[in-house]
């Protein structure tokens, strides 16, 4: 039992809170006492050099990895831990299953189910996890597939879709669970340049029309700058600098940020 962290956060707290989160693999510390708050409806971009822990932030929040220290809170309640006596203990699998549905994730490699059609990909979880009937699930899925412009391909298997189309289906699949926060891990990195735009457009509309809370790891600096409320620059498992996109991209304070932005902008 651990009493360093509260059992719940007061009203008005951010939707997501990383409190002193540490993640290591053996001797390698990937997240180093990370503190990060994400407000309701906020769009936060995470940028930084390869290996700086960006993906890990999303993976621990999605509970794909366990953390070694600290606590992650979602919607006021702990996610990685559960109440025990006066403190917290590491969450059980059943506790995780209750809490995890508030979070959705879209992966760099899409990770669609290859043996299912686009529509089946989107109705499985709502039916099994949320208990929707097939009709309800299909109605919801068709709406979402239409939103991402994939309704005409609903009966295709992923192998017959382009990368951009697969990624749009993957976004619809995650949205079908109505998560409170969406995690996007370099969702355009595996795509051919000509289809990146169609995926970015979908994310744009999620942000502007649906006001979804999102955490987006990206290498698309232009897009991050255009769409984010806040940009976090990660360096060696810590947030080296964060702020509004204007501030971070135009007037970075940290030496590392400047170097990174120079290197990235030179490359483009």
């Amino acid at each position: 039992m651990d009493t360093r962290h509260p059992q719940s956060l007061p009203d008005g707290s951010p939707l997501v809170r990383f409190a002193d989160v540490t993640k290591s693999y053996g001797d390698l510390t990937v997240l180093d006492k990370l503190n990060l708050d994400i407000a309701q409806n906020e769009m936060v971009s995470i940028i930084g050099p390869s290996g700086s822990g960006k993906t890990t932030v999303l993976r621990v929040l999605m509970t794909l990895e366990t953390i070694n220290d600290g606590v992650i809170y979602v919607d006021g309640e702990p996610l990685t831990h559960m109440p025990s006596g006066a403190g917290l203990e590491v969450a059980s699998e059943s506790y995780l299953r209750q809490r995890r549905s508030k979070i959705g994730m879209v992966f760099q490699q899409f990770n669609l189910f290859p043996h299912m059609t686009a529509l089946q990909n989107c109705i499985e979880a709502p039916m099994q996890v949320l208990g929707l009937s097939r009709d309800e699930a299909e109605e919801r899925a068709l709406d979402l597939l239409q939103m991402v412009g994939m309704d005409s391909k609903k009966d295709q298997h992923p192998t017959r879709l382009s990368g951009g189309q697969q990624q749009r289906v993957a976004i619809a699949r995650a949205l079908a669970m109505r998560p409170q926060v969406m995690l996007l891990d370099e969702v355009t990195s595996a795509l051919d340049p000509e289809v990146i735009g169609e995926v970015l457009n979908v994310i744009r509309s999620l942000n502007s029309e649906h006001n979804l809370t999102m955490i987006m790891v990206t290498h698309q600096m232009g897009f991050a700058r255009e769409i984010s409320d806040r940009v976090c620059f990660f360096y060696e498992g810590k947030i080296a600098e964060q702020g509004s996109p204007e501030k971070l991209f135009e007037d970075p304070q940290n030496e590392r940020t400047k170097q990174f932005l120079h290197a990235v902008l030179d490359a483009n």
Partner: protein
Amino acid sequence: MEWRWDFTFEILPRMLWATGNTLLAAGIGYLIALVVGLILMLGQRTPYRIVNFIVREVVEFIRSTPLLVQLFFVFFVAPQFGIKLTAWTSAMLTIGLHFGTYLSEVYRGALEGVPKAQWEACRALNFSTAYTYRRVVLPQAFPIALPGMGNYLVGIFKDTPLLATIGVAELMHTANALGAETYRYLEPYTMVGFIFLIISLPAAMGLRRLEAAVAKAQGKVKH
């Protein structure tokens, strides 16, 4: 020695009856092997270290000794320790165990062939473990396992002549008996070979077709 068609037709009914027994032995043996393989695979995957270790050693032991030796052991040696089994029971038990160890490897390989990312997608969608297996992992592991499963079905079928040695009345045993009764060996053994051929070839072809059909049903082939 000349081929005698009248003799061929005379022994045909007995040979066909024996073919039935061969198919029955292969079929039952295969079903047992499928289940044993599943149990052994689960045993190797449990988090209990000691179970893991024992199952792995047993599998290793069974796989490093010949089927014929195991068959003799179960049928001739076990009775001396008070375990008396009929020829059929010994045969089914031995085939089930022997090929079960190979099938457990087929299953293991197939499960490992399903990318880790598929598990993570399921977790991100909050599937239960049972549902993850049922809807995502097993449907993807099945096509990977299918060629191996098919090969061992044919493999068991082709190993059934070994059962003649302990007196199971399958094809080989019947051919032996006919030879001993009539002193004619050409027709019985040729028929054995021929019968194996006309069953194995279409079976192998059918299996390829099944693999293609499963792949197609899962959207793997562009149609």
